[in-house]
């Protein structure tokens, strides 16, 4: 098995090496990748969407459909993990208890204090990253991950029950669904306004005091908020289920 594996690996490697020989040089400004599509995005982004961060405008608008499906992938993973691991209450009673020992209170003091100190700052920073994605590196995914990480940090520092009191299972699920719904809902609103799916310029009809270009910018912001909610909720959902084996009793 190992020998076959090695042969397959070497063969694939040689194939890829052969492919590389005709690549343009690394970081070549004249390579097709740099001259075909990207100049259009770079020069037109501000005029067409009023977003200086081109990654955000491509992510949220030019290829917004990819992003929507990507959020759906996170949602699918969250639901998949939830479906696989979550125990129903009936069976739960019959399971033998977890083997993790009780944590002594004095030992966790440092960790708890620091976690309590850090979590609000993390959440504040996450909101900044989400809201400031138009102008600086950031956006829905990054902000959502930081937001989710702050809850996971609390779950590690304290225990899972404490987090589940603040983020109930139903809240997490609803937020995860709501995030994706915001995204696809904005897309459907555009369809209802007789434009194409995810054509945010249609939103200028219902948003006050926005022209077509600003409507795109606002549309991207709305989408980013949806992405952030979905990513945050689903990461928490995945973590909670994985760490407690679906019992929601005590995590790591």
């Amino acid at each position: 098995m190992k020998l076959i594996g090695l042969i397959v690996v070497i063969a694939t490697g040689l194939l890829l090496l052969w492919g590389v020989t005709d690549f343009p040089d690394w970081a070549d400004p004249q390579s097709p990748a740099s001259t075909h599509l990207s100049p259009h995005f770079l020069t037109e982004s501000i005029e067409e969407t009023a977003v200086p961060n081109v990654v955000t405008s491509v992510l949220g608008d030019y290829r917004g459909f990819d992003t929507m499906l990507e959020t759906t992938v996170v949602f699918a993973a969250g639901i998949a993990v939830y479906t696989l691991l979550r125990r129903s209450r009936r069976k739960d009673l019959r399971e033998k208890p977890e083997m993790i020992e009780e944590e002594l209170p004095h030992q966790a003091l440092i960790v708890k204090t620091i976690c309590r100190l850090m979590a609000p700052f993390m959440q504040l920073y996450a909101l900044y990253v989400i809201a400031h994605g138009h102008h600086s590196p950031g956006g829905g995914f990054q902000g959502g991950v930081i937001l989710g990480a702050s809850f996971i940090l609390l779950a590690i520092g304290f225990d899972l029950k404490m987090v589940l009191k603040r983020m109930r299972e139903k809240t997490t699920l609803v937020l995860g669904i709501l995030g994706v719904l915001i995204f696809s809902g904005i897309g459907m609103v555009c369809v209802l306004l007789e434009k194409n799916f995810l054509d945010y310029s249609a939103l200028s009809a219902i948003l006050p005091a926005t022209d077509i270009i600003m409507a795109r910018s606002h549309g991207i912001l709305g989408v980013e908020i949806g992405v952030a909610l979905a990513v945050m909720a689903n990461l928490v959902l995945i973590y909670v289920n994985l760490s407690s084996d679906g019992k929601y009793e005590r995590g790591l």
Partner: protein
Amino acid sequence: MLIDIICIGLMSLGLFFFFATTIGILRLPDFYSRMQAAGKGDTLSSMLVLTGLAVYNLHHWSFGTLLVSVKIMFILVFIFMASPTASHHIIEAGYDAGVKPWTKGEEKNEQEGKEN
């Protein structure tokens, strides 16, 4: 000019400690001493490098660059809090799980390094 010297000094010191940390993680005999290297060395070296960056950023003195430097200092404060706590917690978890500390004269605890 002075800024350059300070900045180069801080950064190369930071890189030196990073290097030392890496060697420590690879070469020290057991879990606790390796975590020692990771926790202390990592914090110190990233603090040094970040301070260097903050100083470097003040080359063009304006409100904008000052703001960026202040932000970098904020990152530094958080690393200063988080990194030692994290290594403390990991060591604690190792202690709870019953990892035996290395004592002088023993063989280097290779087995445990492989397990983890």
